[in-house]
């Protein structure tokens, strides 16, 4: 990694310095567990707050997109009349959720009903461990980090199934079945879209993947994967599959409100519901964080002269913009049907991801092409993307078109 001089600015090093300072109070033998606990505590605090304000951001964004102001009335306790643009809304929600009655249906499987929300949050939190948030900020830097991420992510659906099953409610059960079908369908494109990145970076370690996207000195366009043809397609597929993995609109079938009331959440209330809600946002954070890491250069600044801004802020900006994009999609799109969902995965995303693998191979083989050959390289790569997209897309939407109508006068 070619580290410019200003990368070690005070802000950049601040989190690590604080950690080292606190660890310094402990004897040598305790330093490792204390460091780990600190990392966990910091992550819980930061992402807890991020979650809280993301719920507000989502409601505000949806509100504005729907021509209404969104929550803007919650103020401070004991200060009547303060409004603060509704910034305290998440805390009011938290108080409400915590004080609501926790209802467990009599016929429910009590143990699983209790375990499901706990597990879903636990698995969602586990994914945070391997994401590099900044230059030195990664909780566990393991060699197979990407694999770990998807392994932990896959387990969340298990918890969703448990919730659906334990509730002893037909809507919940259908929701759970949908969740399973959705997971099985979208795990594949998600992984396949990541394979080119792993192939070209030559590693499964998120930190090394980020380093592989370091800026080339003098390069105008950031040296991120998303700015290559295969990277763009991979990123698009990753985002679509991530929407499905996070059960976000237009793939929110497991909890499809208009059909299944609330799917696997139907019989949950109070704090357990809040845990599910939290897990959904944690899932979003994790997936977008991984997406930023794999395709958007992780914590890398877009150009060298912007590197004075701390790396973790860059990471935050990228992650948040991806999350906001997900919310924007939610504000616009409608839900797919379950058969269309699986068809989209198997007949569209998987073939495209496989072809993208070939594109990536071509791209890496032709790395040495330069000059006019560079244009040929781009042309071939784009053709490899656009032609399958159009052909498969046409097959996918065969028979669907806006219609013209006749009139009886």
């Amino acid at each position, binding site marked *: 990694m070619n580290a410019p001089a200003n990368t070690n600015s005070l802000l950049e090093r601040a989190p690590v310095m604080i950690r080292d300072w606190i660890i310094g109070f402990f004897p040598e033998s305790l330093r490792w567990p204390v460091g780990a606990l600190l990392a966990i505590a910091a992550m819980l605090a930061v992402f807890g707050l991020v979650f809280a304000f993301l719920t507000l951001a989502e409601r505000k964004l949806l509100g504005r997109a729907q021509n209404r102001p969104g929550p803007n009335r919650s103020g401070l306790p004991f200060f009547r009349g303060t409004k603060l643009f509704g910034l305290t809304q998440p805390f009011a929600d938290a108080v409400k959720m915590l004080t609501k009655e926790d209802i467990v249906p009599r016929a429910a*499987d009590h143990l*699983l009903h209790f375990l499901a929300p706990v597990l879903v949050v636990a698995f969602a939190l586990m994914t945070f461990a391997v994401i590099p948030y900044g230059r030195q900020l990664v909780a566990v830097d393991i060699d197979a980090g990407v*694999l*770990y991420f*998807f392994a932990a992510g896959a387990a969340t659906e298990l918890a969703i199934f448990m919730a659906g099953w334990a509730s002893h409610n037909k809507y919940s*059960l259908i929701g759970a079945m949908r969740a399973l079908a959705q997971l099985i369908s979208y795990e594949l494109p998600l992984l396949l879209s990541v394979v080119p990145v792993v192939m070209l970076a030559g590693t499964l370690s998120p930190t090394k993947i980020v380093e592989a996207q370091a800026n080339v000195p003098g390069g105008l366009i950031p040296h991120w994967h998303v700015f290559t043809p295969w990277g763009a397609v991979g990123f698009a597929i990753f985002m679509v599959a991530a929407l499905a993995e996070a059960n976000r609109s237009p793939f929110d079938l497991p909890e499809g409100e208009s059909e299944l009331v609330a799917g696997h959440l139907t019989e949950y209330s109070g704090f357990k519901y809040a845990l599910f809600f939290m897990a959904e946002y944690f899932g979003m954070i994790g997936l977008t964080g991984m997406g930023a890491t794999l395709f958007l250069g992780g914590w890398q600044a877009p150009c060298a002269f912007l590197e004075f801004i701390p790396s973790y802020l860059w990471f935050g900006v990228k992650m948040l913009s991806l999350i906001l994009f997900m919310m924007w999609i939610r504000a616009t799109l409608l839900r797919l049907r379950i058969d269309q969902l699986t068809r989209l995965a198997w007949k569209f995303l998987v073939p495209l991801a496989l072809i993208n693998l070939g594109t990536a191979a071509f791209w890496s083989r032709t790395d040495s092409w330069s000059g006019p050959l560079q244009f040929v390289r781009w042309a071939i790569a784009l053709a490899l993307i656009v032609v399958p997209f159009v052909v498969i897309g046409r097959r996918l939407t065969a028979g669907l078109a806006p219609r013209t109508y006749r009139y009886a006068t």
Partner: protein
Amino acid sequence: MTAALILIALLILGSTAVAMSLRNLIHSALLLVLSWMGIAAFYLWAGAEFVAFAQVLVYAGAVSMIVLFAVLLTRRSRADLSIAPASLRRAVAGVLAGGATAGVLTLAVLRTNLQIAPSAAPTVTVQQLGLELIGPQVASVLVVGVILTVALLGAVVLAASDRNDGKEDAP
């Protein structure tokens, strides 16, 4: 080191034993997921992290899903899920067979003089694994790929519901 191993062993064996003796099929399946996770923990303990994550991804992520799907698709009522052994004789026979095998294996393990290496685990990076798979083991990778594809197709053919079939078989 050994303490961690014993904990992992307790997790694996305990959850498996309970899973195999439970009456509720869903609980069994979920406990087995726990046991598989314990096995992944064992792999981690042994220093084979790639295998550990692959174990979680494949077993907790995929096999468990298929199992749960199969459970849900093959029951008539919630009561169907509580499954008892067919007969006491069968259960006793099964446990006896298992116990006998266990005895033989334990004896064999304890009687054998096994050399062990120094405590540090052999390091294997993902890159090494990949080179190994693409290099010397490429034939096996291809064979496994073919097996997986055939298995996928076979599973689809077997499980694909043929509505006409159902009509003919209807009593």
